[in-house]
């Protein structure tokens, strides 16, 4: 269940202007709040179609997405999931024949390693992972033994690597981990890296979203008032902006993509954000079962067509249901025009 503290935390987010950190403006908090409220709704056989028209589309998708992500608890893996994962690791090929590249996570750091076989300890199997190059017979070759309970810390590295490092420092899971740590406790952070699932789908212009999510710094004060910096990606964890070894919470599809790329085993997103009128027109018919937010800007070239699409859908709904019962979410900010209504999930 979402915790109120996480919601409050968003109110401490700051951006840098005039040489100092300042709290996010009201419009930005409103967008986070909309994302939060959408996630916070009870399950229903009707889905929300929400459209907002903003004076500037920059950051709207990221902020809405942030609200949605913050409102979700970080998933705890089930025991069955952990068991299956450990069994899969046990079944890895013999390292003497095929050395499997691994990623080992520990204490907020990730280590490149190589599968070094299985050893029985006290009658229980443990997987050996070597994380350091052996310098000589007497030095190097640091190896960890991972039991079933810690299976979540060990993964096959999808990116093959040939050499191990000489030192065993590993690297920080995120350069802005302290920023994310203001939101999540260490147990949640660990789970995020291993068991996060994408529940948010963003469709928009890749370059623009990359700039907003990866390259703009935000900060949040810690208990001592020191600002911890980070980027939205520390929380949104967008698949395209993460190393393939880390698990994403957000999928991003470029607006110009030919078709939605859905991989086997992908669960449907809980929320889809169409960033822009053109994106809405191109993609909205692909997602009729999911809560959807369309972000239009007054300057969008296809605004009129997109608005006509929404009005037509709303008018159709009004033919079969009372207007008042279709309404959902109240307007939150004077600058936004918009509409939110319920549609049948298809």
């Amino acid at each position, binding site marked *: 269940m979402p915790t109120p503290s996480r919601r409050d935390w968003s109110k401490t987010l700051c951006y840098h202007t005039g040489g100092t950190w300042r709290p996010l403006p009201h419009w930005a908090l409103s967008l986070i709040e909309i994302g939060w409220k959408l996630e916070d709704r009870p399950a229903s056989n009707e889905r929300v179609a929400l459209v907002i028209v903003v004076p500037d589309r920059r950051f709207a998708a990221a902020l809405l997405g942030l609200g949605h992500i913050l409102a979700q608890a970080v998933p705890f893996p089930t025991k069955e999931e952990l068991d299956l994962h450990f069994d899969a690791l046990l079944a890895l090929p013999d390292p003497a024949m095929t050395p499997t590249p691994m990623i080992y996570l520990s204490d907020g750091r990730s280590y490149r390693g190589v599968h070094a076989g299985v050893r029985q300890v006290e009658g229980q199997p443990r997987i050996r992972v070597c994380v350091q190059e052996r310098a000589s017979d007497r030095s190097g070759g640091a190896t960890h033994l991972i039991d079933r309970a810690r299976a979540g810390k060990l993964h096959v590295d999808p990116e093959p690597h040939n050499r191990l490092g000489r030192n065993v420092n590993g690297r920080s899971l995120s350069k802005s981990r302290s920023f994310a740590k203001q939101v999540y406790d260490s147990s949640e952070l660990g789970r995020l890296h291993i068991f996060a699932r994408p529940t948010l789908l963003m469709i928009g*212009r890749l370059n623009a979203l990359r700039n907003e999510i990866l390259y703009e710094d935000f900060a949040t004060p810690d208990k001592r008032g020191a600002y911890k910096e980070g980027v939205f990606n520390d929380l949104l964890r967008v698949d395209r902006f993460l190393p393939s070894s880390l698990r994403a919470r957000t999928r991003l599809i470029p607006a110009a993509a030919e078709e939605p790329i859905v991989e086997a085993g992908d669960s449907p997103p809980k929320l889809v954000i169409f960033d822009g009128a053109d994106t809405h027109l191109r993609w909205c018919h692909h997602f009729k079962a999911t809560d959807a937010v369309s972000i239009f800007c007054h300057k969008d070239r296809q605004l009129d067509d997109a608005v006509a699409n929404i009005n037509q859908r709303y008018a159709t709904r009004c033919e079969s249901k009372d207007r008042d019962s279709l309404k959902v979410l109240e307007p939150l900010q004077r*600058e936004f*025009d918009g509409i939110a209504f319920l549609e049948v999930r298809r």
Partner: protein
Amino acid sequence: MNNPQFKTAALSYETAAAAERLTIPVNHELLKAFSFSVRQLSNHLGEAAEDELWRTPLALLKRYRFFMVSAPVPFDLAGLVDRSGLNTISRNLQMYSDVDRSAAALLSQAADLAARLNVLSDNPLLTALALAFPKGVGDALLLLNRSHLVPAVENILKKHPKTSVAAVVTQNQLKGDIYADRLVLVGAASWFPSFVVQAPRAKQLVILRYKWIHEQRREQSFFIDGWAQSDATAIENSKEVQAEVSWSDDVGIHESELLSPIDWARIHATAIGNNRTHDIEDISARLVMLEGDFAVFVEEDSGASVLTINPDADEKQERVVRMPPSLLKPEMFIILRSTGGSDYIVTMADKLLGSTAASCRGQQQDWKDRLRTLVLDSSLLEVSVKLLDAGSTSRAYETNVRNWISSRNIRPHSYEDFSAIMRIIGIPDKAEEYWRSMEHIARHHQRAGQQIRRLLLRKLRSMDLTNLRRLGRLDIALPDADAGTLTAFRVMAIEPITRLIPAGHLNHPFHYGGAYAADAAV
């Protein structure tokens, strides 16, 4: 610590939230009299205003009226009114009178008022603006409805001490990150797209408008039952500055009356003429009105494409995009060859074809000529039937046959269709050889398109596109491409219907003269 984009976004929200609306009502008795006299003439003529006899003088007067109410320029600015046109009206008054004496009297009155105005150096809009801001307009953007008066207005503003720091912009520029303390709209707010008023890039929105122009308030929400409230708050917050003499007459002209519907037929006639009979090679095309009183016909066929520039593209690769003409929209920029013929792809493709160009093009010409002769000797329908009998696999509709004859089409999509054509034109033994040549041409057309796009992308990297946004037109020379001069034009409007036109007119921008479209409702 890096927040350039967020700070800019925040500024957009701040200005939109804080925007205060200020209307400066302006008056000028003689201009008002002239404006009403044009209206009186138009109302009197009713449907007769569409007749050739009245259309030209009325268009001239309306254009002058529109210029004077839509830009802070002196009434005697050179080029604002067609003096020779006014003289022609005076000379032909008897002719007008023979047709409709009352209308002629009204026309005479309007033309006389126009002539009297045209010798005045009055600039009431600028005077009112200066009066409203005694300390100067400061950091202000002045937004014009049309690009072609931008240089003249810039010059005028610079010379006036109260407006010397103001900049002139067009709506396209406001789509970028441009902000000011004050945004001055000249004319009626409803002449501008919604984002200008509903997401203003200035803390104060100043509407500089003649008092007798009545404007309908916009819908506040885009959506049925949308969030935006009725504009009660905005109305309460809006102010009106008394900039000139008081005015008690409630009779006004609705802003939409000052705009004329686009006379597509007239623009079409400028290029093609009125009484042309159709030819079998005619192509279905749509007329596109471009910036600077230019227009162009673009092909309607689903396989056709036009090259466009998007100066605000997110990805550099998206800056130059080839798209079907059906996706063109007003405010996009289309790239056309303004000198050196209409199709730069053919020129470039021939260059790439090198020594094989002559023989390949010769073969292309040969089978098309034979097919054309066959159609002329019988009919499109008969040829379609013959093609089906000869093994054409696609439905050899008359449209397809027409396309295959056209020089713009290289070959049918399938070899079966091509082979059927070669059979009915009497050279079946050359089908394979000709097909290989047509494939060769098609490949080089594709390469030519890619090369032009690459050259354009490279060229655009070193070009300042401000003028493209500001003036709606930009010449782009590609010396490496032998493509003549390419020009990017802003699309102003697109004709809702299609017309059959000779293929030679496609993609060739032509100047139609602005007399009947400068005040067009685009």
